[in-house]
């Protein structure tokens, strides 16, 4: 649910990075944070455990520039990936405008990917959304690993709707900004479509 503020001439949108545990959601945000000009970003918040697993969420506010005199601000959130943090995941999806699903390309994580995708669909439904109706991008992360599953297979299993998707190596930053741009564009196009 975007927020249009005529007083400060700002539009604020919420993007959530979803995916199984250790797939690289936080790494995506860390890369964006590192590579963004200081004046365009706010503080990155990570509510993590001592072992650096996301406990509640990571949060990164970003300013992308102006459209028709309105500053566009995106709030990026990640969810905790581990199965038992489902209650937290539900809460973070509240008011979401666009979703990135980060899949772990390692063949042994395919079941975890599928489980997380099902979980995303269910939790969105709980909040009154349908995955088919919101801006949605899929990222196949860790493509460089030797045990990565074939891309065709991943697309078939995780992207049957054939939404925009990207191969990525979040640790080096490959594919990270492409993914962000695609989902941000989707959100803005959606705003335009809904305004008509």
């Amino acid at each position, binding site marked *: 649910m975007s927020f249009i503020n005529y007083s400060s001439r700002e539009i604020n949108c919420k993007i959530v990075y979803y995916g199984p545990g250790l797939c690289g959601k936080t790494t995506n945000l860390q890369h964006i944070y590192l590579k963004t000009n200081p004046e365009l970003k706010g503080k990155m918040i990570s509510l993590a455990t001592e072992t650096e697993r996301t406990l509640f969420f990571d*949060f990164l506010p970003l300013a992308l520039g102006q459209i028709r005199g309105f500053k566009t601000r995106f709030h990026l959130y990640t969810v905790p990936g581990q199965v038992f943090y489902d209650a937290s995941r539900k809460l973070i999806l509240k008011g979401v405008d666009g979703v990135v699903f980060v899949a772990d390309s390692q063949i042994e994580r395919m079941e975890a990917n599928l489980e997380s995708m099902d979980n995303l669909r269910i939790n969105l439904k709980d909040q009154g959304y349908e995955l088919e109706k919101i801006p949605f991008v899929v990222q196949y992360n860790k493509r460089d690993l030797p045990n990565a599953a074939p891309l065709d297979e991943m697309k078939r299993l995780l992207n049957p709707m054939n939404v925009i998707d990207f191969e990525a190596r979040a640790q080096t930053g490959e594919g990270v900004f492409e993914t962000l741009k695609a989902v941000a564009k989707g959100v803005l196009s959606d705003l335009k479509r809904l305004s008509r």
Partner: protein
Amino acid sequence: MMDSQLVLYEEDHRRILGVIGRLVREANSKGVFVVDKNGQLIAEAGEVRGIDSTSLASLTAGSIAATGGLAKIIGEEDFPIHFHQGTRDNLHITTVARRMILVVIFDERSSLGLVRLRVKKAGVELEKLFDEVRKRAESEGSAAASPFADITDDDIDNLFAD
């Protein structure tokens, strides 16, 4: 149920600032923030310079969401009032108008009793105000309000031209 898009005009913002500016004074507080439950900062008043209000908004919404989850576990609908006591500054957090959160920062110049009393009054005023905003949004629909109705694909592409 999914919430609709929130649109605030200058007049709405001015009225919100009027209410929370008065709350700052009447409660002897340091600062007041209005945040929506999705983590967006709506307005701020008082001595708020130096406070990262974007982070404050996101974390407040997260905290309200988490304690709301806790409430349901023990069979409560919600915990509408939260109080965090620090060594110097304290936080008083309440939910208003179903989707908004009112955050008051205060120190030894005020007291919990006074803050509670003033927040109650301000909460009623904000509730009325946000009810009007909601009703207007329902009657207008998103088309009348959005400045995004006639943006072009080029406008969007230009944002990403680096």
